């Protein structure tokens, strides 16, 4: 007989987390990390209790966008540091910024380890910044986290749109709750065009790059304004009234 106590621990550690939203895409560079961080910050500023988990182990970037990563402390597990109001967990807390080369089996194992000791406490939302693709990170979180919600990010590029739609269709076939597709880096002029299939569009905004690492500046960009509309559409679609927790 072999029993793995970590899986039971994960359930308990996430027991008071109301919703887990993973930000995914087939493609990299479409803005998953920028959107995850901004989405989390906006929810937090609206008074929700929010956690942010960076599961892009090979390429963690949420801490770069936040401008700091904090340091976890220990108390019957790992207490995530508060970074700009978010409870934040990232591989950088353990990798010391070194490059991480891991195969899929170890990636899945790392995710189980991290979630089995992270004390999130009570959260309204845990936002998960995912790596591109549909590998161990996505499959393991689907397996591990009952009720996981997925927000998919696409761009107007030929290389993104169709592939993301197929990925979303497959996730739905598998019974995963897809809260919507967000189209990022839309040319500012074409923002107005309605599209039934997308939860929201986010403009290409040349100020974004400059605002990386500076949270207040980031939240004042057109980009953040558009993410705010996505947050509202998300809350509306999920029947969460504004300000009510």
């Amino acid at each position, binding site marked *: *007989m072999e029993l793995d106590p970590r899986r039971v621990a994960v359930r308990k550690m996430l027991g008071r987390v109301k919703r887990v939203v993973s930000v995914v895409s087939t493609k990299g560079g479409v803005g998953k990390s920028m959107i995850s961080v901004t989405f989390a910050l906006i929810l937090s500023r609206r008074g929700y209790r929010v956690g942010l988990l960076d599961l892009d182990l090979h390429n963690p970037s949420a801490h770069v966008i936040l401008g700091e990563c904090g340091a976890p402390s220990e108390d019957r597990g790992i207490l995530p540091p508060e970074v700009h109001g978010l409870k934040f967990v990232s591989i950088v807390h353990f990798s010391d910024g070194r490059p991480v080369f891991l195969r899929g089996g170890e990636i899945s194992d790392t995710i189980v380890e991290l979630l089995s000791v992270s004390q999130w406490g009570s959260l309204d939302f845990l936002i998960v910044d995912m790596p591109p693709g549909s590998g161990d990170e996505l499959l393991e979180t689907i397996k591990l986290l009952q009720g996981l919600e997925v927000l998919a990010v696409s761009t107007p590029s030929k290389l993104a749109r169709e592939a993301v739609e197929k990925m979303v269709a497959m996730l739905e076939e598998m019974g995963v709750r897809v809260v919507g597709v967000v189209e990022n880096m839309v040319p500012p002029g074409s923002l107005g065009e309605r599209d039934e299939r997308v939860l929201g569009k986010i403009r290409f905004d040349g100020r974004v790059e400059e605002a990386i690492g500076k949270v207040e500046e980031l939240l004042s960009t057109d980009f953040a304004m558009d993410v705010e509309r996505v947050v509202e559409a998300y809350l509306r679609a999920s029947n969460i009234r504004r300000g009510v927790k």
Partner: protein
Amino acid sequence: MHEWAVAEGVVDTLLELGKKERAKRIVRVKLRVGELRQIERDLFEFALRELAKGTIAEGMGVEVEVERSVMCCRVCGFKWSFDEVKEKLGEEENEAIHFLPDILPVYVKCPGCGSVDFEVSEGRGVVIWSVEMEK
């Protein structure tokens, strides 16, 4: 120390198992804890006993065995164990491995060929090895 979190996972798993098997009492448990975790054994055993109080596992016998690690390189096949490399690691590095054993290749390379592509085939996990119950 996060020994408490690990202990909590173990006790919860035991209680789930006890419930499923309709046990009256959990009498004894044997655990294997991977060497990479560098767990504080006394603290861990204390935590297990404390957490068991007031449950069907109260007073259970606890045996914790530390499983020696075996790393196996996927490139050159070389095998080694953690104690051969531990001394070269700093305190913070050991602390990171203590929390996240899978992170080992971030700090250690295969002594045979320098690759980070190796498997920890033993000595990483926490395994409930055997449970004695009273039904």
